[in-house]
């Protein structure tokens, strides 16, 4: 995959920023408006997919290598599990919303409210974006060499 024409490349490099910002917005306001970690994470992933379609696979791989994406994936899942375990340590039970109940109740409908819910949204957004990017990248890297395999069969 070599990528597309200059026009497409220029436009998509601009649009990419917009999509990325929009994804982050969806993630961090997930507890107030529709959206949340999953939708936002997929939007973040699709900004990279757009880059991949426009510039080709190589370009994206240089920016965010496979190994780094895999680490981000693990990190997101791990952070979410850590929030759960912190609930157990600080709040007395698995998944207690300890921030809201004990430390930081916040104003309803403001950005900083709802305790661990925005944090969980961020962790999930990170996890989902990294893992979906990883899937698309893995699927596009895989080039089946069918002819060689058929020869082997015969």
């Amino acid at each position: 995959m070599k990528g597309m024409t200059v026009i497409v490349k220029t436009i998509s490099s601009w649009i990419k920023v917009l999509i990325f910002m929009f994804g982050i917005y969806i993630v961090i306001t997930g507890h107030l408006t529709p959206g949340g970690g999953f939708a936002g994470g997929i939007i973040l992933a699709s900004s990279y997919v757009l880059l991949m379609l426009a510039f080709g696979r190589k370009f994206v791989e240089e920016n965010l290598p496979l190994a780094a994406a895999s680490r981000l994936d693990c990190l997101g899942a791990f952070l979410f599990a850590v929030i759960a375990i912190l609930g157990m340590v600080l709040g007395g039970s698995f998944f207690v919303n300890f921030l809201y109940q004990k430390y930081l109740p916040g104003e309803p409908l403001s950005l900083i409210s709802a305790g661990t819910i925005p944090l969980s949204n961020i962790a999930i957004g990170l996890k989902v974006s990294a893992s979906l990017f990883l899937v698309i990248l893995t699927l596009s890297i895989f080039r089946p060499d069918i002819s060689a395999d058929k020869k082997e069969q015969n």
Partner: protein
Amino acid sequence: MIGSRLPLFVAIPLVTAFVLPLFGRKGKAAATLLANLATIALLVLAIGTIGQSAVYEIGNWSIPLGINFVLDGLSSLLLLVISVVSAAAMLFSVRYMEQYTAKAKYLCLFMLMVAGMNGVVLSGDIFNLFVFLEIASLASYALVGFGCEHEELEAAFKYMVLGSIGSIFVLFGVTLVYGNTGTLNMAYISKAIAESGLNAGLGFALALFIVGFGLKAALVPFHAWLPDAHPSAPAPISAMLSGVLIKSLGAYALVRVVFNIFGITVSIGWLLLVLGLLSMVAGAFLALGQWDIKRLMAYSSISQLGYVVLGIGLGGTLIAKGDNPAWASLAILGGLFHLVNHAVYKSLLFLTSGSVQMATGTRQLKEMGGLAGKMPVTRATCTVASASIAGIPPFSGFWSKLILVVAAIGAGFYWVAAVIVFVSLCTLIMYLKVQRYAFLGELPENLQQVRENKGSMLIAMIFLACLCVLMGLLVIVPSLRANILDPAVKVLMDGVLYSANVIGM
């Protein structure tokens, strides 16, 4: 206080799984060690749950607002079985999985599968049960195709399609239950059903659950995927799949839903009884004709799971009729004890088959022979497991089959007892065949260089073989039986009292 430790059963394997892929190619030894430590920690924790019961409300939300863990006799029994088999299989994989690449990812998927099964067994919420069922299933689909050869991919695809259809049926059942009762907590569903009675919608949901979990358990009309999927997986995974996966995702979930949520009726009891009988007979006949050692064992798994479902179905029929609870509890005891036994000896058999396959490079019985001299430990453990599965007296399989036969005769189901004995004979024949063709007879020319495997593989096999010999004690020694098996039997005998127990605790 056991209750506060319950989240660890899910948290430990999950966190281990999230960390494992971070180890690169160089950290392989550390990753293996970490995974082994995790399974051993789970085993220790599981031993701690013996004889206990608890309800744990996640996030401090009282049910039905939140999700809860329910630990009772049945889940404790299953937790114990899962952790014993996974510890042995993990130990076996240390050396065995050196043949394959991407070992860290293998360990990660293994831990995810364990987490999924523990989650299913502990969950007190029916949608949550579905979510964890999907985790364990997805991990097992990927593990079946781990070798990426023709047969493995074909088997993985077949397994994945049938498994996905099963999962969707379960999900559809969950939605119907929610639409009729307005709650997802198993105890509250049970309460609502007890109040309103079983209407058409709930009946259809029950049918969907039976088909969905039946597909996961590979009971006979739904068994098409098992004889392909189990042999294609790497040997420790075959041991996990046959040993615990079909039991925790299939049999356990089915029994939980039928007995504790919907309440057993005579017709459902008969349905389970017939499904069990069909699986027993069909599995045994199909196994007799096999020449592939792992495929033979896979068919025999269908047949053995049939015993479990038969015992529980027989007990359920008797409970629903209500005239002789003593025989009912004996039948259920036989079924559950057989579940434990089968988990141990079938995983041991698959591990020995993996050992043979690794040494000789083949799975075909016709290409083997005379391995007794070359591989003494594998031979000895395989003989113990074969004697156990065939029901030869001092070994564990004998006791569970004896209990089943006695319960069937006592309850007046003479023909069921006859079928049990007959299938037991077929099992004896098929494992004599394995012994005869694999370990006795002439050693073929090309296998002169064969050596016994070393290290962790042997430890895992010997550990399970010792259990096979000692398991009979579980029913003979009263104190063991009162702590391990009897609470599990009581959960099923109590039936829909489950909801009162959970809400009251």
